[in-house]
């Protein structure tokens, strides 16, 4: 699979459009998942997917193959999503309001609490700063080490750690009461 992909990347670098299409089809869903986690919004994530592959295509000549293509693409997707988050923050600062995050429809009663947790998580994630959100998503969902995150975002190790600590503190502030409610609900059943 890996050697196979190396050959596809080589063909794409040589200008073979079909080969690049194959790479898009292989990695598209993974890039979308990452972008969605980072941006928290489907439409914005779709934009990030497009921008990621566009930049990858333009930069193929600079891809040296030291890391896998997927790893390289991951880096581009993180940077693109991070830039989008920062631009969104600047737009919000100008008073244009955040992008509405679709909240899930309330489910049946027995699911109401977990739906509430899910809604609260999304809302709490939306309140993180771009740096906090990006660092947290990379650590929590993507399993990247703090040193990898700092390397990717160009941060000092202490700054990367602090971004994650701040994110967890903010999430904890809004989620802890709910988690306790869920716990006591489960204990009563």
């Amino acid at each position, binding site marked *: 699979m890996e050697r196979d992909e190396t050959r596809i990347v080589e063909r794409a670098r040589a*200008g073979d*459009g079909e080969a*690049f*299409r194959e790479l*898009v*089809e*292989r990695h*598209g*869903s993974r890039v*979308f*998942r990452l972008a*969605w*986690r980072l941006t928290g919004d*489907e*439409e914005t994530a779709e*934009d*990030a*997917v*497009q*921008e990621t*592959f*566009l930049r990858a*295509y*333009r930069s193929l000549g600079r891809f040296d193959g030291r890391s896998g293509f997927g790893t390289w693409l991951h880096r581009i997707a993180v940077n*693109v999503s991070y*830039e*989008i988050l920062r*631009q969104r923050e*600047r*737009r919000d600062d*100008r008073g244009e309001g955040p992008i509405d995050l679709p909240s899930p429809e309330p489910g049946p009663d027995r699911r109401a609490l*977990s739906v509430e*947790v*899910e809604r609260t*998580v*999304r809302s709490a*994630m939306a309140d993180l700063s771009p740096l906090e959100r990006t660092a947290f998503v990379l*650590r*929590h*969902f993507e399993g990247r*080490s*703090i040193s990898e995150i700092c390397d990717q975002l160009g941060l000092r190790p202490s700054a990367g*750690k602090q971004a*994650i*600590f701040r994110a*967890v*503190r903010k*999430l*904890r502030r809004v*989620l*802890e009461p*709910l*988690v*306790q409610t*869920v*716990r006591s609900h489960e204990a009563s059943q």
Partner: protein
Amino acid sequence: MKHPSDDDLILFFYGEAEDAEAIRRQLEASPELRARYETLREVLEAVDDGPVPERGESYGAAIWARLQPRLPERRKPAGWGSFSLDLRWAFAGLAAALLLVAGFVAGRLWPRPEARVAEGTDGRERILLAAVADHLQRSERLLAEVANAGTADTAVLDAERAWAQDLLAANRLYRQSTRQGGRPRLAALLDELEPFLLELANSPLEPTGGELEDLRRRVEEQALLFKVRVVGERLDQQQTL
């Protein structure tokens, strides 16, 4: 080891504590610390609750369909790529001139749309078309600025980026509304405009000269500025009738 702080517990949860073994021993020894850690763990595990929106098996093909028209041409060893730069510009100029003539002839021969507008357009459609006309004129000014910009001045780029962000949000809305309102050609133009707005809106904070040049070249090659100008002016004229 000192009593672990919340930050130490966060690092421990992620397997990045400097002295994980010492924290483990303290957790075993202290019910209070264990309770604190359990609450933290429950909160962090709750963050996993959100499902990622599903994308079907054909998602890769859908990305490609939207992406392909935006991809810059790869230089081929012979043919178009071997032309000198001057010759290529000459060809581009000729193509633009032909497009201009074709646009003029088409404008003269095709039935004038304003008759239809005057007969069948209700107030809502008029408002929509007026808004789209205004949107196209603002987009035209942005495209003209991009096409004519000589240098990669950061302040100018910042302003263009913010401008494109505004236009992008409006463009999506108008594209959907015009399609739903039975204006497929207008929707198609907005469709064509959108990748450029998207690219400008999400352009890197410090784009390279090559990236900017590439964008300008594509604006010119697709005659986008010209199309936006013509359609925008036509819509505007319809509104003033």
